[in-house]
């Protein structure tokens, strides 16, 4: 086993660990997005889930940079993740400079944000799709088959994490869990705003502080966010790293 294999194994063990102990879907997906960046050697990763309106919603990203987050959002109009969700297959754009006909707005925005290539892998559930894993790299180039396979495995882990594998046979439960995951993300955004205003910082910094506090104290990020919004959390303590 080489160093790379070991990192992959460790990542999956860490993810599996998160799945069995006091499960926190937001924290889990953020960790997964970060692992994608490390293991697939790309510069940014994001997980997008389709809601009932058919809109792709970003639920977790490896970065908090507004410019990159905009790129994920833009894909409700055009881009690899939207195409991937539509056709149900991986979509690769090894050279964004050559993709301006395909996605005029997206390709321009991605290049302006410093990216040379973009990829999207489907998040499948049985015959259906629940969203996609979106990858960006500053360099143009195709992903190697090994990286694609590993990326798909990580996308599948994300699906399992959202769906709590044992319930995937019950459609209504799957539906409920998707709703919960999407709504928790909204609560987290509201909590970021509350904390940012309370301690006078940016929402990105507030997000980092919330996450760090949850990790430090072993708290569930979703529950913590809910307490922040409802005013029952100690904002001063969460705000001071």
């Amino acid at each position, binding site marked *: 086993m080489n160093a790379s294999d070991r990192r992959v194994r460790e990542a999956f063990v860490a993810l599996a660990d998160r799945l069995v102990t006091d499960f926190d879907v937001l924290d889990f997906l953020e960790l997964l997005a970060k692992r994608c960046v490390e293991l697939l050697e790309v510069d940014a990763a994001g997980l997008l889930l389709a809601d*009932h309106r*058919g809109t792709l919603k970003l639920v977790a990203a490896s970065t908090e940079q507004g410019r990159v987050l905009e790129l994920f959002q833009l894909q*409700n109009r055009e881009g690899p993740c939207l195409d991937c969700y539509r056709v149900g297959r991986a979509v690769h754009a090894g050279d964004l400079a050559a993709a301006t006909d395909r996605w005029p707005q997206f390709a321009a925005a991605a290049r302006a944000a410093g990216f040379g290539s973009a990829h999207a892998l489907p998040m499948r559930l049985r015959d259906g799709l629940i969203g996609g894993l979106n990858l960006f790299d500053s360099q143009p180039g195709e992903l190697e088959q090994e990286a694609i396979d590993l990326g798909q495995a990580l996308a599948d882990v994300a699906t399992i994490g959202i769906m709590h594998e044992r319930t995937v046979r019950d459609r209504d439960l799957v*539906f409920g869990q998707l709703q919960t995951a999407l709504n*928790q993300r909204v609560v987290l955004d*509201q909590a970021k*705003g509350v904390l940012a*205003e309370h301690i006078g910082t940016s*929402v990105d910094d507030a997000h980092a502080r919330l996450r760090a506090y949850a990790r430090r104290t072993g708290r569930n990020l979703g529950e913590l966010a809910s307490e922040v919004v409802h005013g029952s959390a100690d904002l001063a303590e969460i705000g001071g790293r």
Partner: protein
Amino acid sequence: MDQDRVVRAWALITEHAQREGVSASLRHVCTACARAVAATGAGLSITRGSGRHDPVVATDDNSAELAELQFTLGEGPSADAMSGAEPVLAADLSAPASRCRWPMFAPAATRRGVLAMFSFPLALGAVRVGVLDLYRDRAGGLAGEELADALVFADAALLLVLDDRGGITGAYPDLVDGGFDEWRAEVHQAAGMVSVQLGLGVEEALVRLRAYAYARDRRLVEVARDVLGRRLRFDGGGAGNPPAEGNRPNGEEPRR
């Protein structure tokens, strides 16, 4: 993208409203939704602070009575949907599982000929304004398409409740980039910030943000970005920023 579903739902709602020559209201959402998902009845309960939620509209007497009953008993799919963030789908109220979960309500509903009930929270993150209830005289779950439609109608009801609280009437929401601004991350973040500025909950903050955008004919997401960029505050303070006007409860144009 599935904007068609949203467009279709709003077209149905406005169609019902226009037939009566009035602006779209919660009653029209119920009527349109019941028809779209083949429900025998529909109703809406609205939260009135401190966790209470009162039935406000129903398409028929039976639905109104069942809503009232749940309110009195404090149990049922609607009550459960209110306390959680997930829809509660009771495909068979005569089944043992339903009777076990709602020992008083389930038998009462089946006696009235309601065999299935589906409750959708009007929720946006921590914001909870009420529940949309759908009733059917036959057992069986909602089909996938019906489920997706019901959620879109629940979204519409949520917007109308917020409109009502902000004193906005007859505003047809703009579809932008595959969704409404109300569901964008910047708006949630700004609502969190404004709630601290005002010392109120996120729901009231969202109401104020929407009323502010509406009164100035601006997009909600642009107003949200001004809040995030600290160019706009809602507490009248801030470094050199003009004090933001809150909405007037009766919906008149804020004075500047």
